[in-house]
């Protein structure tokens, strides 16, 4: 069997200003430990408007309206520059405002746990009627609830409040009165993952002319867990998202691995397709409200806006070889194993040079490395430096040690083989996969031949192991030979392609 290909990618961001304040853990922790803090007082002044979030260059890159390299032309901090002619919709997806997302929470809610105030429901109906992907779902918003009813759920029954423009507009109810895994807080976070995952999934389908009924399998790879007290992480976000996305012929499962999970999922999907188990597999992940405003204290201290103000989501379709789209070289996979060790050198060797050695490649044979593409506008003021740049320097330094490049060329390598980061710091979201959409373009119509996707995860956060984790995989330009069952020769394939091109040309002339 030949390699699987990246057939399409969808990306979505959701601007969630009120959720930063009410659901981001930096803020909720501060409210418990230091309720009168200066930070909490100043925070609302630092929250950006939806327009500013749409006009923010890294966000425009995320949805495909700008290229990663465009960021090199903008002086940092990027938040000081608003992109002219920015659009909420892009070729890869969209940036959704908070009110529409609250409607989406209700639309994807299968257990009537989301309650939205009556008047606000009317406003949402008008907005959703105009949304290209959800206009058919307006009825799912129902008529809404009286505000007094919502206040009762929040004040007396531990419901998680939903705010918009600092007003209570709805809530997520708990699903059980004693089960700690079905609390309103957990259900809210899980519904956020589901809803934002559905948004990315729908964008993937819509923007890439995919027949949703062709999807066989979905792998969800976010960082949340759903289940009740008898199976905390039972799952299955994947099937829930597939259901909302209309993928009638799909089933699925969840893959977890902290921030590395999307790259694990990518390798799994490509392997399932290569093995012939499934033809079309979608990997998808929604975003996390917990990480909103994670570095907010540093941003406010440095008089910057709260830059962690969006949820991130993505969906990527992996399909059998079509002779066109870039192939996923599942034979060139890097793994940080149990025995690898934790020094940066051991980590980079296992993830970067080990797979290259398998393919007889040099570090410079990979045109673009997509590492953790965290936006440095967010991480630098928080003291975490420029994460992608640090990774590129490490890769280059290893290249010097292997004599693949000269020491004086480290910075040139970083510029040519790297990219500035543009992904929101949503844990799993920056992890290699934000580049998949661009990789598909640059390895087909563009002039690149090889890219590497690298995902890394901090497993120790779960307290089950002190280990760190990571996986990587090489993506390559398609050699153009399509896989056809039944042993059709290359010559016949060429004839078939030529024939369909002639048909297409005739069709165009006919119009």
């Amino acid at each position, binding site marked *: 069997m030949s390699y699987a290909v990246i057939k399409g990618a969808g990306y979505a961001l959701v601007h969630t200003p009120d959720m930063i304040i009410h659901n981001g853990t930096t803020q909720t922790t501060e409210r418990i430990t230091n309720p009168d803090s200066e930070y909490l007082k100043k925070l609302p002044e630092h929250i950006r408007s939806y327009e500013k979030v749409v006009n923010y260059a890294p966000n425009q890159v995320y949805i495909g309206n700008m290229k990663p390299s465009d960021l090199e032309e903008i002086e940092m901090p990027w938040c000081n520059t608003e992109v002219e002619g920015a659009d909420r919709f892009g070729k890869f997806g969209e940036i959704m405002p908070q009110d529409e997302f609250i409607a989406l929470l209700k639309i994807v809610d299968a257990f009537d746990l989301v309650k939205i105030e009556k008047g606000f429901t009317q406003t949402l109906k008008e907005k959703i009627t105009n949304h290209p992907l959800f206009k058919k779902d307006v009825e799912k918003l129902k008529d809404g609830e009286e505000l007094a009813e919502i206040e009762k759920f929040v004040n007396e029954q531990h419901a998680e409040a939903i705010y918009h423009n600092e007003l209570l507009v709805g809530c997520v109810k708990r699903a059980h009165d004693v089960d700690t895994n079905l609390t309103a807080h957990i259900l809210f976070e899980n519904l956020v993952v589901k809803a934002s995952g559905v948004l990315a999934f729908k964008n993937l389908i819509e923007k890439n002319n995919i027949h949703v009924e062709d999807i066989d399998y979905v792998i969800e790879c976010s960082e949340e867990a759903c289940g009740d007290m008898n199976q905390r992480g039972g799952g299955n976000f994947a099937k829930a998202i597939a259901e909302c996305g209309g993928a009638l012929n799909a089933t699925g499962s969840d893959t977890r691995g902290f921030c590395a999970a999307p790259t694990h999922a990518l390798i799994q999907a490509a392997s399932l397709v290569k093995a012939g188990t499934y033809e079309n597999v979608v990997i998808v992940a929604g975003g996390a409200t917990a990480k909103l405003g994670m570095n907010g204290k540093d941003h406010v201290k440095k008089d910057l806006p709260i830059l962690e103000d969006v949820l991130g989501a993505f969906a990527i379709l992996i399909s059998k070889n079509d002779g066109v789209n870039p192939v996923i070289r599942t034979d060139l996979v890097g793994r940080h194993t149990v025995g690898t060790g934790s020094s940066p*050198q051991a980590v980079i060797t296992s993830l970067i040079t080990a797979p290259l050695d398998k393919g007889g490649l040099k570090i410079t044979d990979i045109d673009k490395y997509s590492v953790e593409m965290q936006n440095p506008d967010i991480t630098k003021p928080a*003291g*975490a*430096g420029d994460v992608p740049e640090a990774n590129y*320097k490490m890769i*280059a*330094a290893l290249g*010097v040690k292997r004599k693949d490049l000269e020491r004086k060329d*480290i910075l040139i390598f970083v510029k040519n083989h790297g990219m500035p980061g543009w992904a929101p710091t949503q844990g799993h979201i920056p992890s290699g996969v934000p580049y998949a959409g661009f990789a598909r373009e640059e390895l087909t119509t563009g002039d690149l031949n090889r890219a590497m996707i690298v995902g890394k995860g901090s497993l120790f956060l779960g307290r089950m192991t002190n280990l760190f984790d990571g996986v990587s995989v090489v993506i390559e330009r398609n050699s153009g030979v399509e896989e056809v069952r039944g042993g059709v020769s290359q010559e016949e394939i060429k004839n078939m392609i030529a024939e369909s091109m002639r048909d297409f040309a005739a069709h165009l002339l006919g119009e």
Partner: protein
Amino acid sequence: MTEKYGAENVIVLFGAAEAESAGLAAETVTNGDPTFAGSLAGVQLGLKTYHAVEPEFKEAVDADVYEEQIGMMEMVLDVDAIIEEMSSMREQFCKF
């Protein structure tokens, strides 16, 4: 640990990637937590602090092991900035 072994017998070794964060960590175990948040707020331990890329550490360990474990990062990090920051912390706050 400083109570058990004596502060003069403890060296704190850092591996932080940025001079600023290495300095902040060094300040915490010398002059006390500058953010006044943790258990070392206001506690001046004055410990000896070094970063793994500083020459004092490099000269004290096996050169081959150093090259294998740290050689790559030495190329990547802004070693001069880290040395400057760490020396400044030692000069200001180290008691030993």
